[in-house]
């Protein structure tokens, strides 16, 4: 019987580490952010100032919040048609075939490529392409970052959507077919309505991924500490400013960066929670 007790105690203790880790992360982020919030108040969130000159230090998170939200939403907009059609291909048109299996594996591979490789590829392969179109001088900026981000989040949105589309009961679809509906009509009047919330949730979860993506965005967004002025203008996201400036930061600047991290943490947690909530309702 003592073996039982030891096992149960061990399992319980290891579950405690998750509790400790989570509270530790939240406490450390809040603790690290306190100096910045004490100095600038809640105005820190809404200010777009970023001036590290000693004596004149002033920090605000708005440029980065804007950069993160704009790039992620743009990435999502680019991702939606790709993920939507691909998930229909996998879970509806070619369901259970070899082709769909191969496509699925290829998309899984896309999810496996490290972020820094995406960034590097975007820098050397995609950026010159954008320069040659004349839309952007340097090829850096919101659009380039969003394009690569979109490729990066497509696998998540696709595999979740495909799973949800494949869960739509065959009886529903067969009923529509028996009334003479075409496949497209079945998709738009049966499959999508009954899978709607799940599909929306898969896109929200993909958005959650895009918000926290660091390396690829850091290498492509142009690293300007301002609110991006246009699609092809440079900017910075919350994650990229931390990646770029944390190493040389100290004192108030470090606290400001931790505060940016705290805000990023809260935003991603909220978006992910929302996605999970919708998924749970659906299931």
């Amino acid at each position, binding site marked *: 019987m003592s*073996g*039982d007790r030891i*096992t*149960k105690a061990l*399992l319980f203790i*290891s*579950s405690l*580490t*998750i509790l400790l880790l*989570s509270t*530790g*992360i939240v406490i*450390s*982020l809040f603790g*690290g952010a306190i100096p910045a919030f004490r100095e600038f108040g809640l105005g820190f969130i809404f200010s777009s100032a970023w001036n590290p000159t000693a004596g004149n230090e002033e920090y605000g998170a708005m440029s980065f919040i804007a950069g993160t939200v704009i790039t992620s939403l743009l990435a999502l907009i680019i991702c939606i048609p790709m*993920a*939507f*059609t*691909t998930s*229909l*291909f996998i879970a509806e*048109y070619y369901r259970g075939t070899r082709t769909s299996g191969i*496509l699925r594996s*290829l*998309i*899984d*591979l*896309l999810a*496996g*490529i*490290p*972020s*820094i*490789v995406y960034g*590097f*590829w975007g*820098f*050397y*392969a995609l950026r010159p392409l954008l320069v040659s179109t004349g839309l952007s001088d340097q090829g850096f900026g919101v659009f380039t970052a969003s394009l690569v981000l979109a*490729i990066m989040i*497509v696998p998540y949105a696709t595999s979740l959507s495909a799973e949800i589309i494949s869960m739509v009961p065959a009886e529903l679809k067969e009923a529509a077919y028996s009334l003479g509906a*075409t*496949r*497209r*009509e079945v998709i738009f009047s049966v499959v999508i309505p009954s899978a709607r919330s799940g599909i929306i949730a898969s896109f929200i979860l993909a958005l*959650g991924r895009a918000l*926290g*993506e*660091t*390396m690829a965005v850091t*290498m492509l967004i142009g690293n300007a500490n301002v609110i991006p002025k246009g699609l092809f203008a440079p900017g910075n996201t919350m*994650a990229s400013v*931390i990646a770029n400036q*944390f*190493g040389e930061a100290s004192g108030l600047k470090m606290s400001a960066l*931790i505060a940016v*991290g705290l805000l990023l*943490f809260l935003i*991603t947690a909220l978006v992910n*929670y929302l996605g999970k909530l919708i998924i749970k309702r659906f299931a």
Partner: protein
Amino acid sequence: MHTELTDNIKRRTRTNGRFRYLVIAGSVITVIPIFLIVGNLAVKGYRQINLAFFTQPAPDTFQAMMAASAGEIIPGGIANGLTGSLLMVLLASLFAIPLGLMTGIYIYENSTKKYAQFIRSLTEILQGVPSIILGIIAYLWIVKNITRGYSALAGSVSLTIMMLPLIIRSTEETMRMIPISIREAAFALGTPYYKMIYKILIPVSFSGLATGVLLALSRILGETAPLMLTALGSPAISFDVTRPVSAVPLLIWDFYNDPNMVSLVWSASLFLMVFVLSMNLMARSVASKHKYI
């Protein structure tokens, strides 16, 4: 009347066919990037990959510049990154695999309890935390307070926190697929609880657990952002956990920032991608071979 009906059917069949082509076109566009990326890296990266690439540490800027201007292959390789990655990933696995497995089993075994459900929600939140934030955390905990400087330990702590939720979730999901009857049969024979776990739950779900671990490893192997704030990078091969070390993704970042080393980035990226993707494939083949549960 008759023509109206056939017209209607014709129109609907036409839009139906068009939509099918749209779906196919969209799917093709989705997979194009994978071919572009793999092809691009393979073509530009293979030239630098030789034995020295794996056995020598990264060259300094001057060496690289001289070689590049003479049109030669840049000397040196990624050995310091390989050893650093190995050190940190091993250390992270040492923490995360046992803890993750045990927590996953705990959640599965107590899934009706409020506390276990709460831990599961925390795990889900932890999984969604951007990796750069885990870098900040490991910096605050380890770099500032324990090793008093950038260190391999800090790097592996950030990787551990990344791995944990992945392993916990996959463990729990694998366990849930084990038929209840197997457990009940064990209990009916009077098997003690701990023996049921060690001799039944874990062996039966082994391939699922292995898949989860391999996928988690392939995720953290390519991770760069948290290491920039914790392990920092080092030009020398080092196995001291209290000192800065390099890692393959960190080397890519260093090479990327040095215009003389561009051709090395292609090779290092190619290597990292191939390594991570083969690990990924391995995980999936383990999963598909053992369909028992």
